[in-house]
């Protein structure tokens, strides 16, 4: 085992550490079609930058015998192919991150697959990359996939491209082949707004022009792949970009300190600078830039810090502190490019949860303007977006969002869409522009609003959401309560599952989409009732947690009270006021809650009513007490 020679190597070490502190980081992704040589290329970079340890190399030799595709040689691709299932199929099917480092830079490589159905993975890798290496097999030239990968790279805002024209050994290191492919690529990417495009002829397998200039191509004077990766200038646009600071977390250890923690998304900020809260327009000045290593006088993009302001103004997670002179858009309607990730098609009208770096709200796609064919970039009319398709859409959010166009700011112009029921990430969006400024339609702009309406009625408007099995007693209790409300001078209304099904929602059936739509409409109507200052009593079986959550999310804090009418299944079956359980148990009704379709009881209901062995009046009393403690009843 080696031991450091204290004298000379201490110096070398200091030099090394000083170098490390100067070292920057470049994130890039590799994309290409299957078998273009991506894995081999990354393996080659790791190998040539000596990032492979002896034990890994030994393991590799074993694996090459078992899995390799290159005969007796060590198959470098096996260094980066990770999961068992993939290995058996011989393809890379996910995004993998690899690391290597030279004296100038640390590199994070996103290895993304070339299979057609994996656009999603490529978009994922591209979202954090500063540069893309697009592989082209010299024998095959520019393919449909090449166009697709290049387009996705540009869509995701990558500004620098390396065209790695690989397997040049197999075409006799021919300059003409290289030139033809380069020209073709420059043509196809001309409109995509890349800042730099660098074609490099190379052989991943034999190492030509990967880290060292190739002895086989005298005609090529350009950089090697690694040489270019080490020196390419990237970022740089952020200094001039206006200050953006999405607030992640409010740090408040005691009454003397209230700081806003986050990562600077763009620009710089100094103590004394005037800043504005994006959504409210409230102004203040930066008092301190706090870190555990001491206060800073100024800081810039990429730093995770905590800002303390001069004034006690309202700022919470999801809002942004921004340059007072150059503010982001604040709007509840905007246009964006959307990449769709889910097996279930995106249909306009559906509701999702939209999430930016720190903000979250409900959103619906109001319009799918067109779909973009990622192969030829043509715009086509479309009714839905399938998995891996890209579309240009209009969005409408529940509450206004502060953002910049993605082209101007990748951090503040991006969002993801989350399915409300499955919590899956179903899409990724890049905002193009605002459609209507929220300030023009600002809710506060109305003279008569919820607050004035409820003040007039002298009550706190609220949705009382009764959930429970069929026959649990929801409607009975709701009716009793409403009588009480009336006699005590409250203003209320009742929405009942069956009645709504006969009127407002009579066009809806019982498919998954219809069920969600049913709840959404009832939610919207309840919300209007709350806007009108009313107490809305809604009795709906609403068996699924996600659906109830959906309505809760539509309303403001405290406006939605989930009341769980908790009656054991056996009791409901015994009561069976409408004879429905009997039918369901005989199999005459399908998907009947509690019988062959689940009921998900609330985890933490606002009010929990146990009904077993109790008279309706007793239950009502318990409910009234609970409502009184919440200020709904006086």
């Amino acid at each position, binding site marked *: 085992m080696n031991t450091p020679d204290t004298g000379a190597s201490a110096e070398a070490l200091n030099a090394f550490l000083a170098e490390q502190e100067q070292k920057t980081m470049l994130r890039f992704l590799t994309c290409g079609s299957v078998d273009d040589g991506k894995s081999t290329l990354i393996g080659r970079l790791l190998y040539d930058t000596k990032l492979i*340890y002896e*034990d890994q190399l030994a393991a590799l030799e074993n694996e090459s015998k078992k899995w390799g595709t290159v005969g007796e040689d060590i198959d470098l691709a096996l260094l980066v192919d990770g999961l068992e299932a993939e290995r058996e199929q011989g393809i890379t099917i996910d995004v993998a991150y690899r690391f290597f480092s030279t004296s100038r830079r640390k590199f994070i490589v996103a290895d993304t697959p070339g299979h057609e159905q994996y656009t999603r993975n490529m978009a*994922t890798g591209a979202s954090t990359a500063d540069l893309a290496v697009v592989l082209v097999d010299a024998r095959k030239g520019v393919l449909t996939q090449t166009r697709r990968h290049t387009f996705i790279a540009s869509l995701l805002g990558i500004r620098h491209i390396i065209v790695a024209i690989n397997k040049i050994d197999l075409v006799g290191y021919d300059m003409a082949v290289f030139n033809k492919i380069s020209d073709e690529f420059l043509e196809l990417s001309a409109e995509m707004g890349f800042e730099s495009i660098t074609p490099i002829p190379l052989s991943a397998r034999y190492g030509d022009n990967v880290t060292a200039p190739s002895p086989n191509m005298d005609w090529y004077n350009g950089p090697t792949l690694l040489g270019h990766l080490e020196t390419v200038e990237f970022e740089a646009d952020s200094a001039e970009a206006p200050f953006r600071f999405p607030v992640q*977390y409010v*740090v408040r250890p005691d009454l003397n300190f209230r700081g806003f923690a986050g990562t600077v998304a763009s620009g710089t900020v100094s103590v004394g600078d005037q800043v504005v809260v994006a959504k409210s327009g409230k102004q203040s000045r930066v008092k301190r830039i706090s870190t*555990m290593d001491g206060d800073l006088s100024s800081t810039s993009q990429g730093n*995770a810090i905590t800002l303390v302001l001069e004034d006690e103004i309202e700022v919470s997670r999801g809002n942004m502190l921004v340059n007072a002179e150059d503010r982001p858009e604040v709007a509840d309607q905007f246009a964006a490019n959307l990449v769709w990730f889910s097996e279930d098609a995106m249909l306009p009208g559906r509701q999702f949860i939209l999430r930016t770096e720190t903000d979250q709200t409900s959103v619906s796609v109001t319009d799918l303007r067109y779909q973009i064919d990622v192969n030829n970039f043509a715009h086509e009319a479309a009714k839905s977006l399938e998995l891996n398709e890209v579309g240009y859409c209009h969005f409408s959010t529940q509450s206004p969002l502060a953002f910049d166009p993605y082209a101007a700011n990748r951090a503040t112009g991006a969002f993801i869409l989350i399915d409300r029921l499955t919590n899956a990430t179903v899409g990724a969006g890049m905002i193009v522009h605002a459609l209507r400024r929220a300030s023009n339609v600002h809710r506060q702009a109305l003279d008569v609003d919820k607050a004035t309406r409820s003040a007039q009625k002298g009550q706190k408007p609220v949705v009382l959401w009764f959930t429970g099995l069929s026959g649990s007693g929801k409607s009975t209790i709701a009716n009793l309560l409403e009588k009480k409300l009336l006699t005590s001078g409250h203003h209320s209304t009742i929405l009942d599952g069956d009645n709504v099904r006969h009127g407002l929602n009579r066009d809806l059936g019982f498919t998954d989409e219809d069920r969600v739509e049913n709840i959404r409409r009832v939610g919207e109507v309840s919300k209007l009732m709350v806007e009108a200052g009313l107490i809305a009593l809604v009795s709906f079986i609403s068996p699924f947690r996600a659906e109830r959550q959906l309505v809760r999310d539509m309303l403001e804090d405290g406006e939605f009270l989930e009341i769980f009418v908790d009656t054991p299944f056996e009791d409901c079956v015994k009561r069976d006021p409408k004879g429905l359980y009997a039918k369901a148990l005989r199999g005459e009704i399908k998907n009947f809650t509690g019988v062959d379709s689940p009921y998900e009881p609330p985890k933490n209901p606002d009010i929990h009513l146990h009904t077993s062995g109790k008279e309706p009046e007793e239950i009502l009393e318990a409910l009234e007490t609970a409502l009184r403690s919440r200020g709904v009843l006086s």
Partner: protein
Amino acid sequence: MSQNLSHLKHLEAEAIHIFREVAASFEKPVMLYSIGKDSSVLLHLAMKAFYPAKPPFPFLHVDTTWKFQEMVKFRDETAKRLGIDLIVHINQEGVDQGINPFDHGSNTHTHIMKTTSLRQALDKYGFDAAFGGARRDEEKSRAKERIFSFRDAQHGWDPKNQRPEMWKIFNTRVSKGESIRVFPISNWTELDIWQYILLEEIPIVPLYFAKKRPVVERDGMLIMKDDERMVLKPGEATTDQMVRFRTLGCYPLTGAIESDANTLEAIVSEMLIARTSERQGRLIDRDEAGSMEKKKREGYF
């Protein structure tokens, strides 16, 4: 002010960002603290993320009862020094059954005293997010793991069902029973860790520094006889050798390396010329290449 952050500043900011996201989005996060160097870095980053407040979550050590004595001492001192809330969990059933790495082998021992024990602790306290110090460079199957790694109600990891992770926007939504494991230092390499420890003067367990220690050569590894529970086989003998550890776990499963490096500077210089990866010292990775992936599907961290 320089435009591009140094790579360590970059990695630091990324990790702090992740800590804050989780603290803001989850009801009951916890940080898994395993006492090793990666945990030391993770803890340091957590302290930075919420400064001047303390991290708004507890720290959990899953104690297999076979950790080096120096680790346990360091753990308790660290918790005291930083004033953090430390929970120590031991799988009592495993202890009662006398599970140990010598008689039951590394797989069974690890499964019961670590994997199962961790699940027990997570279920017991109802944590919905757990920070871990895994790095993508450690092992091949980790290279594909997300920073926010989604686990089903059985704590299992399904490599086919991971959420795409775009930009710095994390989908933190989980349903009941499901949880998320979060790896803020995913993008760090072993060298980054050491450089950061050096730069930030982060305290680490003294076992990382070379010292004369009583070791036995067994199965091609140098095992330190940390207490009387290790019984020597015929022909075995302990000798005092200058050794240190690159990675720390249960003492009977952790190989030492011969080294004179007794300062951080010396360790980093040694690293720069090292020819074997740190996981070589872990018995657990020695079986088939796919083994770590299997363990992970079962809920090993």
